[in-house]
């Protein structure tokens, strides 16, 4: 590897480690959150260095972007951190970090010795690509070879929304007065662009980096920005329409997975001639649902008619 690249990697990873430390231990909580967001962005760069553009897209939009927005929104709802006296179990707990560090150290040694040319599943994936129905290997793994994982993962996301709503929190209040009049204008300008890029990423997922998750994240970013600029959830979208939109991705996925059994195939075995179409259907439904789910996670509570009335 050229020394310049090595130097770049070293610098990047050093910054990541420092930011991670700051993100956990910075004196001021706001500072910690911002450090963590920068950590996320640098992680996205690290994914690019590791030749994983799909992960980089997801990390930048989900790991850094939306997680950061969630963290900041949470910070705004919390009282400032109080310095409490150390809890009683502090004595036993101080031993554990050293244990963790020791574990990590041995792991480094092992991992280095481990880094032998492992076979991996790459060859199996590439051998099966002609029958996958899509051209992008990562999408093929996500939506065909290991689609059952992805289905459960969407279930996890929906579960997060239901769990959050069951806490009975208020919907995050949009700021009553905006500090800058230019934000709504910007949102009006950018929102169509967000929609356009969402569909672009959905379409692109079939043969390159992209697909349902980055697309959903982008859609959510547009919606969250609109909410930050003072938009409200339209009243006819609250209640049943929103809930169905949240559930649509998982339901479509389930219907397709079980539906192919009607062809006499196994669970999730797309018939080869329809594979592309079915994957596209799943991808679009999942992408849109993910966008709505992420927005719901940002809102934090169930938007209802009466509540939006009160605000």
């Amino acid at each position, binding site marked *: 590897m050229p*020394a310049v690249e*090595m130097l770049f*990697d*070293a610098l990047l990873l050093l910054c*990541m*480690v420092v930011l*991670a*430390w700051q*993100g*956990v*231990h910075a004196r001021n909580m706001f500072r*910690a959150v911002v450090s*963590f967001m920068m950590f996320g962005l640098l*992680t996205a760069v*690290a994914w690019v260095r*590791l030749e994983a553009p*799909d*992960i980089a897209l*997801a990390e930048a939009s*989900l*790991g850094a972007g939306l*997680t950061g927005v*969630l963290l900041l929104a*949470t910070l705004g*709802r*919390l*009282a400032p*951190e109080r310095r409490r006296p*150390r809890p009683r179990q502090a004595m036993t*707990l101080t031993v*554990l*970090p050293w244990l963790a*560090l020791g*574990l990590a150290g041995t*792991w*480094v040694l092992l*991992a280095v010795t481990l880094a032998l*040319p*492992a076979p*991996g*599943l*790459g060859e199996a*994936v590439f051998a099966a690509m002609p029958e996958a129905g899509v051209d992008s290997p*990562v999408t093929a*793994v*996500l939506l065909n070879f*290991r689609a059952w*994982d992805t289905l459960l*993962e969407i279930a*996890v*996301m929906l579960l*997060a929304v239901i769990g*959050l709503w069951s*806490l009975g*929190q208020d919907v995050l209040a949009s700021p009553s007065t905006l500090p800058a009049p230019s934000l709504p204008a910007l949102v009006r300008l950018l929102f169509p662009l967000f929609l356009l890029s969402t569909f672009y990423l959905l379409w692109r997922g079939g043969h390159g980096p992209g697909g349902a*998750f980055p697309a959903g994240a982008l859609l959510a970013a547009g919606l969250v920005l609109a909410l930050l600029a003072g938009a409200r959830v339209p009243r006819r979208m609250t209640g049943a329409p929103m809930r169905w939109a949240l559930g649509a991705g998982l339901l479509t996925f389930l219907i397709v997975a079980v539906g192919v059994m009607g062809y006499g195939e196994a669970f999730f075995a797309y018939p080869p001639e329809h594979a592309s179409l079915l994957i596209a259907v799943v991808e679009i439904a999942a992408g849109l649902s*993910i966008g709505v789910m*992420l927005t719901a*996670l940002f809102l*934090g509570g169930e938007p209802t008619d009466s509540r939006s009335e009160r605000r």
Partner: protein
Amino acid sequence: MSLPPGTLFLLAAALLFAIGAHGLVTCRHLLRKVLALNVTTTGVFLLLVTLGRSGTGVDPVPHAMVLTGIVVALSTTAVALGLIVRLERRQP
């Protein structure tokens, strides 16, 4: 340079894991614990992709696993943050 290609990334992954695990145990504020947990998770993701890469060519399976993992991490983080806000609000 004699280091094998992934060494730096593996080192960083181990450090991130340690920072996160340490923070999770020692920090008292719940929000910091959540941040620490996310750092730990990133460390494991880095390890997963780096180890998967040392084979012949790029292996897409770890990529898909990490994509899944990022979404799961975001979902759980959202629930954790919701719980934190809820706990804080009920404090007298």
